[in-house]
């Protein structure tokens, strides 16, 4: 038989998280700090709207780009939050989670050989999606001394004459790093100077623990060269609904929509109706969850300080990224031993790129009570290692 497989697919490694997942699954009584999704239920009024849409029999396809009412609510939200105007008709597309938007954007923009700059550590999908789109991933290893922000200098150094796209994954999974306005302004300067495009993944934008959230699309000259990705998973605790959206200049969005149309048809209808309710009346829910995450974040930072574990203070998402280099183990060794000896699952930093070596991703999408138990065990484990 001939090889049934596409050569590019074969080169893609399964996600490092998957490997760890298999180990954890076998351990029945382990507690986990390894989850990348909210612990809150979707707010009831949002779920209720989804149920209502089913009762009403709204079970048909929507238009390819999504329900008009939803697209209008999305543009209103972006106007409210960022003071940026998108045309709901030509510049917005509702996707199956933020991840579909990332894939569609890369496939719509990348030609074979084009280089895509991926700051790491980062979410696991940018690299394989780039490869599948025929592009060449070029990594920028972010540094703890910069609080894992991307600097203009790092960007400049990674650019070649083949560079076409920069991915901006902030607020960041797994580090919790953010980019503030001054950081983005410097990045924008370089991007414009080299005529690059940006795919900005702002799925964690509502989980931001400083004032004045800034998106790259707010920086003058950037909206016209940026694909803005967002969604409902993290802000409204709606991961299982699989709903996100992409906003981009018409010239790009039109092509993304073609890919979406033929691969997906449309995002789930029930989820779209629920999402309208989330955008219209969900602001209090978002605030409640953000405040709860922020309390846990402060609690973890204080706990790390008390046990002398080095960790830069992250201001975004729901992750902390402590450094474990002092113990002379790889991240994977540390995480595996911690799991085996104390029965707590955390994710090795290397699951998000080689430069995550020496770090752990700890999620605080868990109740304070859970965090207390897990942190107690971490303290015990660390004391044991230090002896």
């Amino acid at each position, binding site marked *: 038989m001939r090889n049934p497989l596409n050569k590019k697919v074969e080169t893609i490694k399964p996600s490092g998280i998957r490997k760890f997942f298999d180990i*954890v699954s076998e351990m029945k009584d382990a507690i986990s700090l390894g989850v990348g999704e909210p612990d809150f239920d979707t707010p009831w009024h949002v779920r209720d709207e989804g149920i209502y849409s089913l009762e009403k029999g709204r079970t048909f396809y929507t238009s390819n780009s999504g329900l008009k009412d939803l697209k209008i609510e999305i543009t209103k939200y972006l106007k409210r939050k960022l003071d940026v105007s998108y045309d709901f008709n030509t510049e917005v597309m509702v996707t199956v989670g933020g991840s579909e938007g990332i894939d569609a954007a890369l496939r719509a923009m990348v030609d074979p050989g084009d280089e895509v700059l991926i700051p790491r550590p980062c979410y696991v999908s940018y690299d394989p999606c780039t490869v599948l789109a025929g592009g060449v991933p070029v990594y920028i290893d972010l540094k703890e001394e910069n609080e894992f922000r991307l600097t203009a200098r790092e960007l400049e150094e990674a650019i070649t004459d083949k560079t076409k796209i920069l991915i901006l994954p902030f607020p960041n999974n797994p580090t919790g790093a953010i980019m503030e306005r001054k950081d983005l302004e410097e990045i924008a300067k370089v991007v414009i100077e080299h005529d690059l495009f940006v795919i900005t993944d702002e799925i964690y934008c509502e989980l931001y623990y400083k004032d004045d959230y800034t998106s790259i699309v707010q920086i003058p000259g950037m909206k016209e060269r940026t694909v803005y990705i967002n969604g409902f998973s993290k802000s409204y605790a709606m991961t299982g609904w699989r709903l996100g959206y992409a906003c981009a200049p018409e010239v790009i969005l039109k092509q993304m929509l073609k890919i979406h149309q033929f691969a997906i048809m449309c995002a789930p209808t029930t989820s779209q109706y629920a999402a309208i309710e989330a955008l219209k009346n969900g602001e209090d829910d978002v605030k409640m969850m953000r405040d709860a995450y922020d*309390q846990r974040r402060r609690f973890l930072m204080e706990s790390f300080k008390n046990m002398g574990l080095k960790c830069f203070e992250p201001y975004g998402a729901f992750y902390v990224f402590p450094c474990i280099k002092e113990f002379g183990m790889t991240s994977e060794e540390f995480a595996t031993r911690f799991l085996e000896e104390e029965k707590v699952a955390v994710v090795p930093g290397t699951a998000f790129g080689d430069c995550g070596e020496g770090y752990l991703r700890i999620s605080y999408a868990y109740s304070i009570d859970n965090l207390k138990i897990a942190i107690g065990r971490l303290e015990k484990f660390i004391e044991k290692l230090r002896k």
Partner: protein
Amino acid sequence: MLREEILTTIEKNSRVDVHELAVRLGSEDGVIAEEMSRMEEEGVICGYHTMIDWEKTGMEKVTALIEVRVTLQRGQGFDGIAERIYKYPEVKSVYLISGGYDLLVTIEGRSIKEVSSFVHTKLSTMENVLSTSTHFILKKYKDHGTIMAKKYEDERQMVTP
């Protein structure tokens, strides 16, 4: 602002100690302690209670909601009547209500008989009370914002990207 943050946090769990509260709210132990005692003095914080699902204890406990219609006399408001009612220790709460009746009274006792007897002998016989209507609580699904039956189970996968 800090007040609101303290209150919304301890409303759900009054056992959080001052230091933990300070850490979680990004404040200082002293600041939190001072604010808390000030709120206690001002009566903003009226008490720290424990939520108990008595049903699970096997101890007999009956709760009834009683709608009370009253008549007001010259120079006398609802406050006076309410006071006469709420001074009884059996009475757990008294609210002045808009609509079809005037006061909503919660009474707790060891048996239906005990509660009924209180209503008949103490409450209905009060001079200003025109009528009462007693509703016994059969099951509490949710109380003080807490769902009684549900035990939280984390159904998420153990590790996800």
